[in-house]
């Protein structure tokens, strides 16, 4: 496909965002991995993006296009090769405390109960236990886990475990929530329920959310804006605004507008060679 066109589309879209310092900002970010055999893998190329305060942005792209890489760069757990990244105006140079992350697997600590797992960031960062315990209880209530505080991860279903990992990501009140295919391991029904819950949590917590997903309909259902990435090296090749009113019900997925957006994203992905 024509790389330059895609790039231009991304840049142009970036330019149309409203004024005011964005919460997340990437300028010309790229990432090259060196494998053990000395091979250089160009995972991300020249990523420009901005996410604004309180905005919900989804990223879709083919497998291996660098979505997780982008998330790790934002989380500061991986050094970038080139470009600039800012979070609330300050450069991202390493892991930081104003970020909450949800991974594809819940990654709970099996020797900690639900409440203790939620409070992990509080223990790690030495925050005030009493204040944050109250907050943890509120969050657990919000995700429907009230009464499960003393249960251990092996006593929970996959969906419940992922809910705990969401409360863990939010407990220290970060400005930004980064999510890497958080519901990829769940069955379709649980996944829809989790989408509704996430919308509710987002509405209540008013966080800036950056969600990576494989599911086009999940991306459209949840987001204010969907970014579409090309196959490796990953670039942002399209950007779509989603204007359904909130809170959205699952019925939104049956509307012609929803279908149009999904089809549009499919086309963008296909045009980038992702669906060959």
């Amino acid at each position, binding site marked *: 496909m024509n790389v330059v066109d895609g790039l231009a589309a991304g840049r142009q879209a970036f330019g149309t965002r409203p004024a005011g310092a964005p919460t997340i900002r990437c300028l010309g970010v790229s990432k090259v991995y060196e494998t053990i055999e000395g091979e250089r893998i160009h995972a991300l190329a020249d990523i420009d993006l901005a996410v604004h305060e309180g905005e919900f942005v989804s990223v879709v792209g083919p497998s291996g296009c660098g979505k997780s890489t982008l998330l790790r760069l934002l989380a500061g*757990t991986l050094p970038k090769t080139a470009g600039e990244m800012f979070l609330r105006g300050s450069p991202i140079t390493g*892991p930081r*405390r104003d970020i909450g992350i949800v991974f594809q*697997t819940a990654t709970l600590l099996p020797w900690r109960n639900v409440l203790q797992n939620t409070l992990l960031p509080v*223990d*790690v960062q030495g925050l005030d236990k009493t204040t944050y315990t109250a907050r943890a209880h509120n969050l657990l209530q919000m995700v429907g886990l009230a009464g499960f505080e003393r249960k251990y991860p*092996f006593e929970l279903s996959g969906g419940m475990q992922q809910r705990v990992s969401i409360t863990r990501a939010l407990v220290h009140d970060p400005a930004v929530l980064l999510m890497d295919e958080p519901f990829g391991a769940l069955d379709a029904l649980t996944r829809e329920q989790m989408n509704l819950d996430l919308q509710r949590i987002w509405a209540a917590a008013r966080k800036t959310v950056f969600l990576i997903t494989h599911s086009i309909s999940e991306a459209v259902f949840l987001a204010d804006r969907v970014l579409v990435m090309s196959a490796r090296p990953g670039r942002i090749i399209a950007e779509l605004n989603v204007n359904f009113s909130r809170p959205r019900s699952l019925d939104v997925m049956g509307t012609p507008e929803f279908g149009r957006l999904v089809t549009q994203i499919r086309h963008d992905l296909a045009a980038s060679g992702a669906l060959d």
Partner: protein
Amino acid sequence: MNEVSSSETVARAALEKPPAVPGALFARLFARVRNRPEWVCLPLTLVLVIGGWEWYVAAYKVSTLILPPPSHILSALHTGLASGVYVKALLVTLQAILLGFLLSASVAFILGTLISQVRLIEATIYPYVVALQTLPKIAIAPLILVWVGLGIESKIIIAALVSFFPMLVNTIVGLKSASADKLELMHALTASRIKTFFLVKLPEALPYIFAGLQIGIVLAVLGAIVGEFVGAKAGLGYLIIQMNYTMDVAGMFAVLVILGVMGVVLNVLIAVLRKRVIFWQRTDVSAI
């Protein structure tokens, strides 16, 4: 019929139609045994082996100097225990085992932590540790006796030496076993090394450490007994050597029974502790 107990009753209850109240109890018992046949088979094996042994020795008139029948061993055990000789020896040996084991486990944990967490220490010390591990530790026992003497100290040191390496290796492997996911999570949360160690690496290592302890305790028993063989003034190993001189074969078997029971008890204690500490684990990590 209420006086009769154990497997015989169970077998009979199986044949008869159960009568009123005690019958219902037997029926329940029978139902449980049918689900868990090992409850009968396990003790039955012991009964068969010991019975066969007794019968074999009597039937073929085997010299009691070569293989004493279980009844002789039992009476030797009884007189030895009654006179207090075995208990005194047991306490000496047990003390050497436990102190040696504790010493060894502590050093293995501290050194294992340093080797697994500090790259320079790993690079400097670990190759020597691996090289030394190939040495048969028991071969050092006479040397230890020369250095430390015939007292309990030499047994403690030998027990510690013999049980050390599996515990060290298991500590190292365990402390390196934390999954990349969990470590990335801690990294993203800005956790310090100390926090990562205590919140993730150490709990993750516990199954391995306990597997090491279970091997270690068996080896500590071995070490203490070998130490007493080489030279001692008291203890179960010393008793075996003495009985060997006087051809008290039944007595030697009696001491072996005591050693066996002690080994099982020590192992069960660690297994129970392990279950309580690692409550979240359902499957066992195999020992390394």
